[in-house]
């Protein structure tokens, strides 16, 4: 199978998944308690005729599947509906918050990959040493720590006692450091374990022995021959990691009162602002599908063997 065919196939698989996601999300909102028209009017008193008129105008008198297609066609045009609370378009609300969330996620990904890949390489090279067992054990501890608790502790020590960072809210890039650290902690531990396992596996391969035998420098063997192959699964994890970070961002943004999309989701759930909840969940889920597909594509480009693999492994 050629690379292009493979990529096209993967992209095509993504489409029914996104379709399925929209059906589930539409259905979730459909069975939610509360009449959408009443929510729209938010307590405003109008005649029953006016309610009927609105119902027809919004297509709510149609069968469910017709309503779904109305909804879908609006979404495709970028119309995610109107917030019940602020009466602003949901897409506008999301766009306002998105940069903060992206900045937070990028910072935390950067942190977790720098820490994770470095410690992963070190522990793989010093396998069995005291340093290895200390770092390996701490990695298990790291992903057992709830991020929001770690965040609270960081807040207590660095923001309150040492006064190095703002306690909460957004006052510039340094407001992102503590939240990013809390988000990065578990994922850096995963990155480290994966890098370590892959490095150990690769270092045992024949071509590495050949490279040593050829008399190549240590740096060349390790960086060019070993790391290049060991890093492939780590790169894939980068894409699989994004949606998980998104989930973590909801909790961490709420904790640090960052004005991102995660906090908007939290506040909207509390205020029962369903259109906003639906819009955010939709955006995040589509991002997840796109990331998964990108992960598949990137790994196919980096590692030609994958393309010939049939069926799917666990």
């Amino acid at each position, binding site marked *: 199978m050629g690379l292009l065919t493979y990529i096209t196939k993967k992209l095509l698989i993504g489409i029914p998944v996104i379709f399925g996601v929209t059906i589930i999300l539409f259905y979730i909102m459909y069975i939610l308690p509360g009449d959408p028209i009443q929510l729209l009017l938010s307590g405003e008193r109008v005649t029953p005729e006016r309610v009927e008129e609105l119902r027809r105008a919004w297509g709510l008198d149609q069968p469910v599947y017709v309503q779904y297609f109305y909804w879908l066609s609006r979404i495709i045009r970028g119309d995610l509906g109107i917030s019940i609370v602020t009466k602003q378009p949901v897409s506008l609300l999301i766009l306002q918050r998105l940069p903060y969330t992206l900045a937070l996620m990028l910072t935390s990904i950067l942190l977790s990959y720098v820490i994770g890949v470095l410690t992963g390489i070190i522990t793989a090279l010093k396998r069995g040493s005291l340093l290895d067992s200390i770092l390996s054990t701490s990695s*298990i501890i790291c992903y057992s720590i709830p991020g929001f*608790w770690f965040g609270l*502790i960081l807040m207590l020590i660095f923001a309150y006692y040492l006064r190095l960072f703002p306690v909460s809210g957004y006052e510039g890039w340094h407001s992102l450091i503590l939240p990013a650290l809390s988000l990065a902690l578990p994922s850096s531990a995963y990155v480290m374990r994966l890098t370590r396992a892959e490095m150990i596996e690769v270092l045992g391969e024949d071509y590495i022995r050949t490279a040593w035998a050829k008399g190549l420098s240590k740096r060349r063997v390790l960086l060019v021959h070993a790391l290049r192959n060991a890093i492939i699964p780590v790169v894939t994890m980068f894409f699989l990691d994004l949606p998980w970070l998104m989930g973590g961002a909801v909790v961490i943004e709420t904790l640090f009162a960052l004005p991102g999309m995660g906090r908007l989701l939290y506040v909207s759930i509390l205020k029962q602002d369903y259109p906003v909840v639906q819009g955010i969940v939709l955006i995040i889920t589509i991002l997840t599908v796109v990331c*998964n597909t990108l992960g598949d594509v990137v790994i196919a480009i980096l590692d030609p063997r994958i393309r010939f693999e049939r069926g799917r492994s*666990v």
Partner: protein
Amino acid sequence: MIRLISERIKLLSNNETFKLFLTYKRGIIGLLLLSLMVFLALTADFIAPKKFDEVDPSSRLLPPSIKYLFGTDHLGRDVFSRVIYGARIALWVGLLVVLVEAGIGVPLGLLAGFYGGRVDKFISAITDLIWAFPPIVLALAIVTILGPGLTNVVVAVAVVSWAPYTRVVRAKTLSIISREFIIAARAIGESSFSIMLRYILPNTLPPIIVLATLTIPSAILYTTALSFLGFGAQPPTPDWGLMLSEGRDYIFKAPWCCVFPGLFITLTALSFNLLGDALREVLDPKLRYG
């Protein structure tokens, strides 16, 4: 009784798998840590100095002391007692989530692997679809429908995270479906149901056990995170996540309200992770998860 137990232990120590397990120091530490949590959960009524909801307005936000080992919270409740009672909830929730996950995931995996073809395609499509949702976000959406509460959170977390069970069981089923003993069972006229239940299911148990040990900690982390946001356990439940959520308002005045519940979440998750790592090495070296 004691003789029976000592015989059991003798039997266990002759068991190869168990001997192998004993060589993993981390696994043993995990097991000991978990035993401690189970002990706390079972004996909470006897060892907790106070009831978990015993309010004492005259001793609010007191720092840790001999009388109050972990200090007191904003209502004057003993944090130590609440943390001990919390072990009950955390373990119970972890177990419940895993049971629901396995209850959904295992039968689907068996069906997909056993029948193959269209059944497999259909089940795999659903699995992929659920896998496409980021867990916390979908769980939040479900809690929005169901309303807040610990039971609803358990349902939400289980509904978003059963996919690994289906994948593991499906893969294992596929790997043994063409082995002689299955063909023999078919030949003597065993029904499909009985083959799945009596021949395939027992073989999928080791990876299921490993997976369960490794999903309990994430189940505990998710449910406490949702409780922390206020969508899970409601007051005065001594849920560790809820305690953190309540203590958060007093974090600078009384950090102990937050430090200890979080520490116990970490220790519980850690115990399962250590145990699961060792079990994976012993039971199923090929299984990779997460």
